[in-house]
């Protein structure tokens, strides 16, 4: 019997999905026959980019699907999947996020209508999330309750999938939200990409170089106050550097892939592992001219932890663009976020990046809980301070983000009471037992930072970035959202 491992819209189209390649590798290593099917990229080609991206608002629940669109989706599923199903198969669906819920429901309905005896397993991060904002059950439970799947794997799937295939359904994470983290990531087989047609993907470089995901670690070494990653992955686990490098080398030798994107919350969490990986890659680059290029999320560290030759090594290994949570121009606010690096540390690392040809992309959060006018001025100053690095193409862009939003299961959530934070009520987000708009908050301890003031500061920041010609990601899109937000505040005021 063949195990079909399916990825579904909506995912990135720029690289083959790593999630299904990971499960395929685990099942294959245990002796099972597998076949990966990327319905996401097939759907992209079936409907074309315009229709594909038009449906984003449907997957993100911003609008209802039209009859015509629903017809196309179901037609696609029937033609490209149901009609091609082997007689005996087991289906494993990777649900990456809430944006995959709608398609998964369409797919599972058709599978069960075609043959109710086909066993369907769903897994992925998305299965733990509620299907609607008013729901208390997970998406996985919703599917089971509606007989749209037989089993759900919660949490990491590599070991649980094999256990389920072996009919050991008592393993943690199978049909129960009691999954355990895998301690030794080095023991896992490398993702298996043998079923993928690499020519299908919409690679980001002009020359369409093949690009793969790499999973180097899970969790994070930091516990930034606004972040919920530690809630999902309490323990930070990482692969040894040579283990990661060997996977990249294998993909290069087997498929000619030299570009990689790390899915890690930070790819330099363990300096020992990171340096080790760079040493192996640098040596391979030198001997084989592989010209590896890899990118991902990255943390800046205090400069006394980073000798100059560290950056030369990263560059020699193929380090390319690093996405860094700079968040603010205020050292004080960054410290309060629990990010232990200063503007001086940033100066040093930017200069080293410039010297060695490394690039970075700034990620920002504006309007932090304790931000004062002085802190805001520090953020405004950074655009001139680091403009040189934009000019040198060291800083390739900035994501100014939305304003600070409270997430559940974060240190910031625990500060709500002590800071006297209250929210405008709405149906957008869940904080504790309340349905709130988690971005519309005020704090008794920082009364000057009203919602209006935060919006004003956010606009000033974008204005300043434009004045210094910084490349802003999603610049117009975010401003349009603020326009709606500002208008809704005005409407609420006028109602009163």
């Amino acid at each position: 019997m063949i195990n079909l491992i399916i990825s579904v819209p909506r995912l990135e189209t720029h690289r083959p999905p790593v999630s299904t390649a990971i499960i395929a590798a685990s099942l294959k290593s245990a002796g099972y026959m597998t076949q990966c099917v990327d319905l996401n990229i097939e759907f992209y080609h079936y409907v074309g980019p315009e229709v594909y991206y038009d449906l984003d608002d449907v997957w993100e629940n911003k609008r209802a699907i039209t009859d015509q669109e629903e017809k196309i989706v179901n037609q696609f599923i029937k033609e490209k999947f149901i009609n091609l199903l082997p007689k005996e198969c087991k289906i494993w669906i990777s649900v990456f996020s809430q944006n995959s819920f709608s398609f998964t429901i369409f797919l599972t309905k058709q599978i069960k209508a075609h043959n109710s005896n086909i066993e369907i397993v769903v897994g992925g991060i998305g299965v733990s999330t509620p299907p609607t904002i008013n729901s208390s059950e997970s998406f996985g439970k919703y599917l089971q309750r509606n007989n749209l799947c037989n089993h759900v794997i919660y949490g990491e799937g590599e070991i649980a999938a094999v256990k389920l295939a072996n009919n050991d359904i008592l393993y943690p994470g199978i049909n129960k939200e009691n999954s355990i983290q895998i301690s030794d990531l080095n023991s896992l087989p490398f993702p298996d990409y043998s079923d993928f047609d690499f020519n299908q993907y919409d690679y980001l470089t002009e020359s369409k170089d093949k690009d793969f995901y790499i999973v180097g670690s899970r969790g994070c070494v930091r516990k930034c106050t606004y972040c919920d990653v530690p809630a999902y992955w309490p323990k930070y686990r990482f692969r040894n550097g040579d283990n990661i490098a060997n996977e990249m080398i294998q993909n290069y030798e087997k498929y000619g892939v030299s570009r990689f994107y790390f899915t890690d919350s930070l790819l330099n969490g363990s300096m020992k592992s990171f340096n080790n990986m760079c040493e192996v890659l640098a040596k391979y680059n030198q001997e084989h001219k592989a010209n590896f290029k890899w990118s991902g999320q990255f943390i800046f560290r205090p400069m006394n932890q980073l000798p100059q030759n560290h950056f030369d090594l990263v560059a020699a290994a193929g380090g390319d663009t690093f996405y860094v949570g700079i968040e603010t121009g205020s050292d004080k606010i960054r410290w309060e976020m629990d990010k232990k690096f200063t503007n001086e540390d940033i100066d040093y690392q930017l200069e080293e990046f410039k010297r060695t040809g490394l690039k970075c992309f700034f990620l920002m959060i504006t309007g932090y809980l304790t931000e004062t006018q002085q802190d805001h001025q520090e953020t405004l100053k950074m655009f001139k301070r680091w403009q040189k690095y934009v000019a040198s193409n060291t800083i390739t862009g900035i994501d100014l983000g939305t304003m600070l939003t409270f997430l559940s299961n974060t240190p910031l959530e625990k500060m709500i009471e002590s800071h006297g934070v209250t929210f405008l009520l709405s149906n957008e987000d869940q904080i504790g037992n309340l349905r709130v708009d988690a971005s519309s908050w005020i704090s008794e301890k920082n009364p000057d930072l009203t919602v209006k003031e935060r919006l004003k500061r956010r606009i000033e920041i974008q204005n300043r970035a434009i004045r210094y010609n910084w490349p802003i990601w999603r610049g117009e899109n975010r401003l349009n959202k603020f326009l709606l937000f500002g208008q809704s505040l005005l409407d609420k005021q006028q109602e009163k």
Partner: protein
Amino acid sequence: MEKINLKITASGNYCNTWPELHIAVNNISQTFTIKEDIVIDLSFKLPKNNTLTFGMINKSFGKNGIWDTAIDENSGSIVNDKFIKIKDIQINEVSVIDFLDKYFYQSDQEPIQIHDQTLRFNGQYSMDFTTPIYNWIIGQRKLFLQQNTINKNQSYFSNYKNVYADYDNQLKIISQLKKILKKIQ
């Protein structure tokens, strides 16, 4: 006025004499003899609109019987040549050497443009630039990137390279937002 530092790193190849590089920023000009490796370091205080010109000036093509290109009589190949290799151009510590192949080397003698940062003929590059200088440099990069066409079909939201959007629309929205903010109590 903005303080501008210009650093040109160049190396010369000797043939009869060392090549000479003439550099001018607006009305201020200097000529440098380029022997092997040299870093020319100049500072100015400049207004908004400026022009940088630089080029080789002393290559001889037979004047007074002097040829600064030596050719093997039998094979016809060049065995020595006077030229200047421009290794780097930095303005306020930012390299703009990659801009060079976007400009035309004006020369009476050079029949075609060969963009390898090497000046083989008498002539000049002419680069108009404005201050604030970093704004100009970033603007040029934006222009060159757009000339290389960003694939608009690639998803705007996943494509981190798609950052050089038009500021005009953003400024219009900011203006609308400011009006709304004035009304919010």
